[in-house]
């Protein structure tokens, strides 16, 4: 790991101020991706601005039609939150599937979304649950947030403060795990908001999470596994690596979507 300067601000304001002064600085959330990337020298920030002690960034708020999760809320906290389980059980279940127990104790929603790993789980939920990403500067809609491989709409030094998810009538997340890394080879989040409004978020399959609009249309007409069973997803533009071909990933999108709908109907 290359050397860096470490900062420990106690408020978002102080953190944002520091980030503005350090051109090569990075925010440090839980560190579950960033610290590993730094060890491999894939990332070498001049400064790390640790958000770990900023209390205002953590916590869950439920208000009728939305669940707001603070950026520094750990995956394990979302998975165990009675409020999230009541309002959006599929979101709590998804948080409980991220990484492993130890990673879930450190990793945060803000860190995951700022990193935008192509196989991360949260992006599928953000798209399916039509979430809004709140930063220190603005509110970014789910459809405007993900820009590409590890790329987001965030500007330098812009800080995610919270993510607000819309409460669906029902939903579920299903992922096909890479048998070694346990990352999502393909993960599909299905959310039914009622009156013909269904959203489908897909992660792991492409360079960045995306919505599967053909399946959304089919499920909006009829929310049942057989509605998507015959949909053949085109492999164009999907990831091709030693773990799976684009054709295999395309096939898995249909299979995982079907299973997610089955789960949502249970």
């Amino acid at each position, binding site marked *: 790991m290359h050397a860096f300067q*470490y900062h420990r601000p106690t408020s978002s304001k102080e953190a944002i101020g520091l980030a503005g002064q350090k051109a090569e600085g990075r925010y440090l959330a839980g560190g579950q991706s960033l610290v590993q990337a730094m060890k491999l020298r894939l990332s070498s920030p001049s400064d790390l601005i*640790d958000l*770990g002690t900023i209390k205002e960034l953590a916590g869950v708020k439920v208000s009728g039609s939305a669940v707001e999760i603070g950026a520094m809320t750990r995956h394990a906290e979302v998975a165990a939150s009675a409020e999230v389980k009541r309002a959006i059980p599929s979101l709590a279940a998804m948080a409980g599937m991220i990484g*492993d127990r*130890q*990673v879930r104790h450190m990793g945060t929603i803000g860190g995951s979304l700022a990193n935008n790993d192509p196989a991360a789980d949260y992006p599928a939920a953000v798209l399916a649950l039509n979430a809004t990403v709140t930063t220190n500067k603005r509110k970014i809609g789910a459809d405007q947030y993900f820009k590409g491989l590890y790329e987001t709409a965030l500007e330098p030094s812009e800080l995610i403060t919270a993510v607000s998810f819309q409460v669906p009538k029902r939903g579920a997340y299903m992922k096909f795990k890479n048998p070694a890394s346990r990352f999502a080879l393909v993960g599909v989040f299905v959310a039914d908001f009622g009156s013909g409004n269904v959203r489908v978020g897909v992660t792991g399959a492409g360079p960045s999470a995306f919505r599967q609009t053909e399946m959304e249309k089919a499920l909006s007409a009829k929310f049942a596994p057989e509605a998507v069973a015959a949909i053949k997803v085109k492999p164009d533009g999907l990831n091709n690596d030693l773990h799976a071909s684009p054709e295999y990933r395309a096939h898995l999108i249909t299979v995982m979507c079907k299973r997610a709908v089955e789960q949502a109907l249970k």
Partner: protein
Amino acid sequence: MSVRVSMKVNGKPVSADIEERTLLVSFIRENLRLTGTHVGCDTAQCGACTVHLNGKAIKSCSIVAMQAEGADILTIEAVAHPDGTLHPMQAAFKENHGLQCGFCTPGMVMNALDFASSHPNPSEQEVRESLEGNLCRCTGYHNIVKSIMAGARAMAAAK
């Protein structure tokens, strides 16, 4: 550049001047000479470096020591009774042959302790899921699963 880090490890306050880039596991092993916490893969997969940070199992190779500033850390060295009597979870690993070479064992035990504190009578499936972040290259996991199920019940019975 160096920075002052202070935390509580196994109940004792410790502090040292370290480089900012020092990982928590390096601080524990090299500064504190507590070498029961192991480094296996060094890439967040194997869990041999698992310790408790404020009561929660985490991978100490995946955070810098400064992230644990002011925290309470528990390592495998403080799990047994001071007179050497094994903790019920450690005893369960011994009784159920839950280890062969023993390299992964400290991480297995630290993760199992945290898991068992919220799962007093876990099913085999729950235990297997709880081990997603720990790799063992000897046992095939079967006896580790048995150990953790027995250890969790023993911990619940001792309460």
